[in-house]
């Protein structure tokens, strides 16, 4: 069903499943449930859980600053 929802099935397999799902309550419900799950999960994508904290570059800045310090230091110091 996940492959069906992804659009990965060929035309024939897709049509067969659709015809079967019209008759089979469980499969029809299963397809709707997978679609609903994907819709719910997609719905969270445009709402980032939380903005990135301000400190995410701290390690990069510290390393870059150390590297600059090494370059600025007189040779032999």
């Amino acid at each position, binding site marked *: 069903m*996940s*492959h069906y929802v*992804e659009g*990965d099935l060929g035309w024939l397999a897709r049509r067969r499943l659709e015809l079967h799902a019209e008759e089979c309550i469980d499969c029809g*419900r*299963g397809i*709707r*449930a*997978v679609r*609903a*799950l*994907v*819709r*719910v*999960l*997609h*719905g*969270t*994508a445009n*709402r*980032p*859980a*939380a*903005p*990135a*904290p301000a*400190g*995410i*570059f*701290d*390690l*990069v*800045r510290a*390393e*870059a600053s150390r*590297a600059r310090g090494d370059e600025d230091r007189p040779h032999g110091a």
Partner: protein
Amino acid sequence: MSPRAAARTERELVARAQAGEVAAFEELVGLHADRLFAVVLRLVGDRVEAEDVVQESLLRAWRGIGRFQARSMFFTWLYRIALNEANRALEKRGRAGRSVPVDDEAVQLAAPAHEGPARQAEHEELRQALELAIASLAPPYRTALVLRDVEGLSTREAAGIVGIGEAAFKSRLHQARLKVRDALGDAALLAGTS
């Protein structure tokens, strides 16, 4: 900004970062930082740990930016580094015998404001159940679900980040959806999204 202009800006920022300009690196990463943090938070489930993972990932990216070649998109490359770091953190936690916690902000479903209290409560229940179901997935399945279904990346992009073929990725995604569907139950899914 048009996609072409955005790509040009990204190329310029990459070149400047490769020349050692920290500000350019920060600007480049800044384009993706919120989404990156969100993905890592959904994978590790804890804000403090997510921040540590992102910091460490960015340090690795900074050290490796000279080796980045534009064969892939910058964000794909960055996500791959972050995913490796998150997996390392999860392995470490697994060795310590701790499970993935559930962060309240890891999954947010927007309940329309016009809904009544009963519907809002139903929505909140579904959100909590979804958080638990995602947190209880093994890391490879959680990663597939988060990248493809939550972040909305294409199968190709997500498979590239994980480092497996598209067919294998789809199989993993299929398994992850089945597990979450089983955990939530069809009735809850259909009622919560109707």
